């Protein structure tokens, strides 16, 4: 089981990889707050992964007439 230190190490590595991919340079002074934000974001993206079938698609997700005609 990973310990807290390795969790932090993994989070930091992920943080650096994502920031690099996005092409942003992050001042060291802002890193702690952003790491906290990333933790919260990961909690949210995990929460969104509910069981669903392949047929469960997002088309029209924000077109409310597409929603109301389906209920």
């Amino acid at each position, binding site marked *: 089981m990973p310990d807290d230190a390795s969790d932090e190490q993994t989070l930091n590595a992920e*943080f650096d990889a*994502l*920031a690099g991919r*996005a*092409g*942003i*340079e*992050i*001042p060291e002074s*802002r890193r702690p*707050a*952003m790491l*906290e*934000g*990333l933790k919260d*974001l990961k*909690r*949210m*993206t995990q*929460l*969104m*992964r*509910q069981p*669903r079938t392949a047929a*469960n*698609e*997002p*088309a*029209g*997700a*924000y*077109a*409310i*007439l597409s*929603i*109301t005609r*389906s*209920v």
Partner: protein
Amino acid sequence: MTKPLHDCSIAEAGALLRNGTITSTALTEHALDRIKTIDPLISSFITLTAEQALADAATADADFAKGVDRGPMQGIPHALKDIYATAGIRTTCHSKLLVDNVPTEDSVVAAKFKAQGAVLLGKLATHEFALGGPSFDLPFPPARNPWNPDHIPGGSSSGSGAAVAAGLVRMAMGSDTGGSIRGPAGYCGTIGLKPTYGLVSRRGVFPLSYTLDHCGPLSWTVEDSAIAMEVIAGFDPKDPGSADVPVPDFRSKLGAGVQGLRIGVPRQWFVKTDGVSAETIAAIDDAAQTLAKLGATIEEIELPDFELFNACGRVIMFSEAFAIHEKDFQSRPLDYGLFTYLRMSMGAFTTATDLTQAMRLRRELALAVNAKLKDCDALITASTLGPATAFAEIDPNRPPNLLVQTMPFDVTGNPAMSIPTGFSKSGLPLSMQIVGRAFDEPTVLGIGAAYEAATNLHLRRPSFAVAKAA
């Protein structure tokens, strides 16, 4: 006339304008005097357009004299959140990045008010790009809460909420992506209507998140929001999110009461949330009883967990916001205020898969809410979860996560209106929101009007504003 001018609603002022009791010039001068006296204490305006406002008021007066009536906003002073493009008038998004931005064209909403002969008093404070705030590292100070200037007015339509509550304008436009109309309305004790997605054109309003952004009014009375909607609603073929549907009669149910309506309450959403104030829960329970006494059937219902809506909305909002700002974020990141930077950077960390999962969840959540609204005519639930936070309680190094439950109806697109439910012991407003079926703003407004008439909470103004009123 028994009321001070600033306490006259749009409907009341409109009647006085039309019977010749007052002029638009008098209304505008009164508002400008009030802004001069009160706004230094609440910083709700970024840009005041006094000279143009007086010229527009004179034009409105000339029109009234000639018998020309362009609609209910003719001659009425109002203001716009500073993300609405205004031709020839600085539109800053409260940001260093756009501090000198002067658009050449009006946003659709600004153009519609102008076409009606409404009088624009100026542009209002916001959280930077409708996302980051309240902040002290931006070109303009943050707006403050008229009920207690040591407290925040909520955001991001912070200036809109503050200006309406202080009686500087009867109606101001805001925008709502995760609750930015309803949050300030809740904290400042005003009405705040987030219309159905697609009902009001967003063209010319600086986007925060394309699929979540809604434009809507904050006002002192329910009727005044209905009047604003009459002016601004309608299909815009050049807004990709605009809905080509008939525009309802927004005032049609204002006097209809709530007899026979079924109103659902997803009570578990707010009673189980960490940090909700007991006063908020008691006020919503009281509101439900009031509506029941007026003839509505109140029914506790269950909806998917609130945190699912919140996660879904935030992942979409961060992703879309970062996509909009990517180039500036890469090239001049430190020109953004700290809170904007910290919030927006989360969009750099979302993946395409995260966004797709969020959109799939969004459809599931929208279906769940609209299925409940087949049985219920409307829902009531918390808007803000307590009174406004004090500035002193906000960590200057971390953007605050304000306790509001507004995101679900940005995710689903249903109309939702914040309305005051009373006051905390500390004298700050409490609120709830009324949620309706898609494009059924008239029912939302009708329930709000019935509740407003039963409680008369709108008769209480911030003593701060009253004391300073000239």
